[in-house]
Structure formats: C-alpha cells, structure tokens
C-alpha cells in the first residue's frame, strides 16, 4: 500500500513551522489563491490537509464537498493570530445535524 502525505495550507508565517517537520506546505498570499491551491492539493495523494481558518473562509463550499468524501480529511487549524472558532463551529454543526440539538455547547438541559 502506498503512502499518503500530509499538507498544510495557509499564510506563510503560520505554516512555516510545519515545513520543518516534513509536512508539505502550500503558502497562500491572496484570497483568490486559496481555491486554486486547494484544488491542486486535493488532486494529489494527501490524506490529511490542514488549512488555516482564515484561508478556509474562502473555500467553504469546497470544504463542504470534501467533508462527504473519505479522503482527504480536511482539518481547520488556527493561524498565528489565534483561532476564529471555525473549527469548533464545525463540530457544533455536525452535532446539530446528527442529533438535531446542540448538546456540546448549548444548554445542558437540552441533552438527549
């Protein structure tokens, strides 16, 4: 079985550290670049693609689509400015979709 790789997409300053660990880095500078870079990354053999929340905001529709597939697993990570809470938002959405109520962050009273 051939190996899969791991990639990081985001602004250069945030993702440079990953490069030293041997993760493939795809720095993006402008907003328009993100969809193109993501496209290129998804065509290659990456199993895990980390994308900074800032960059992810430009490609929400594309990410939605990727979420339905088994590979690659797209992971929202905070950038060096801190988190925007989008990753948590994703978890909350998933919970709501499956259960119909927000059990993790909402009121404990609505627990099923």
């Amino acid at each position, binding site marked *: 079985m051939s190996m899969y790789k791991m990639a990081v997409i985001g602004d250069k300053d945030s993702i440079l550290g990953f490069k030293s*660990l041997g993760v493939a880095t795809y720095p993006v500078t402008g907003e328009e670049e993100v969809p193109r870079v993501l496209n290129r990354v998804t065509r290659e053999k990456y199993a895990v693609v980390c994308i900074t929340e800032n960059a992810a905001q430009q490609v929400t529709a594309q990410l939605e689509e990727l979420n339905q597939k088994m590979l690659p697993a797209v992971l929202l990570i905070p950038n060096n400015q801190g988190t925007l809470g989008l990753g948590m938002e994703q978890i909350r959405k998933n919970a709501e979709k499956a259960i119909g109520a927000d059990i993790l962050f909402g009121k404990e009273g609505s627990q099923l």
Partner: protein
Amino acid sequence: MEIQINPTRMELNRLKGRLTMAQRGHKLLKDKRDELMRKFLELIRENKDLRISVEEKLSRSFANFLLAQAVMSGETMEEAIMFPQARVELDVEEKNLMSVRVPQFIQQHQEDESGNVYPYGFANTSAELDTSIAALAEVLPQVIKLAEVEKAVSLLADEIDKTRRRVNALEHVLIPQLISTIKYISMKLDEAERSSLVRLMKIKDIVRGEEVG
C-alpha cells in the same frame, strides 16, 4: 391518503406483504440509527476535547514561532527549515463503523536514529525556534488523530441524517399509507361480500314467492 389501487384480494395480499417488509425495515433502520448515535456521541466528545487541546498547543507553538521570527532574520530562518529531516508519511486504513467507512491514519516514523526533529544545526538559530518546533512535533500526532476523529464525526453525522430521514419516511409516510390502503381494500371486500349476500337472500325470496303463488 391512499395508494390508488384495485380493491382485490390479490392486491390486499401484496400490500400486506409490503407492510410487514416496511415494518421490518423500519425497525432495522431504527436500530441502526440508535447505534450510530451511540458511536457518534462517543466520538464527538473526544473530538471536542482533542480540538481544544490541539488548538491550544498549536497557538503556543505559533507564539514561539513568532518570537523566533522576531529574533532571527528571515533568510536564516528559511534556510534553517528549508530541508526537513523527516517526512510525514501516513498509512491509511479503512475502518467500518456500522457500514460507514472511516479512514484511520497511522503515522510512519521516518526520523533519523537520533530521534532529532530539528532539521538544522544549533549555531545560527535561536532557542525560540527550537521550542516552537519541538512543540509542533509534539502536537503532530494529535493533529493527525484529530483529523481522523473529525472526519469520522462528519461522515457519521451525514449517515445519521440520512438514516433518520429514511426512518421518518417509513414511519410517517409509507407505513400509514399502506395501513390505510389495506383498510380501504378490506372494507371494500367486506362490502362486496355483504352486497352479494343480500342479493342472494333477495333472489331466494323472489323464487320462494313465485313457488307459493
């Protein structure tokens, strides 16, 4: 609401068959949904805790990285991490969770013997960079684990949504429809039976009347 159909005994039997089938399917799907839900609840809590810890650790590493960038010149920095020592390679296995295929990532370690994560010598680099990269190397397995769990959670959420729709369609549309149609046919059939009985009695009366007269 009824399905438009001829009220015959044949149709009645066919519908009864469909009803038992639908009820069996409904029960199975409901069991499936419950089991998916149980797995989902387990995973989503793990997902949440893991994400909190990963985000915190990443932020800390980024903070150190910023410091390192402030201390070192851009070129030295790029030069230092230009050629990574290790390569992250992942083995992907499929796991079957209630017929939802979720990936499992296994990280293949390819560091050199010393277990050294730094791709550079210590001469030209600052200590902040070391801390940052060490911290990053430490979170990496957790990041991969998080990717795996989050993927499973989102796939499960989709499947639960789908299953719930099916259960509801069976419970609130198909099964009531079948039941009311079955009722309609059996009433029609009873009615036909009664009317033929009455007709026979009437004919008998007429025949008897003629015999007497």
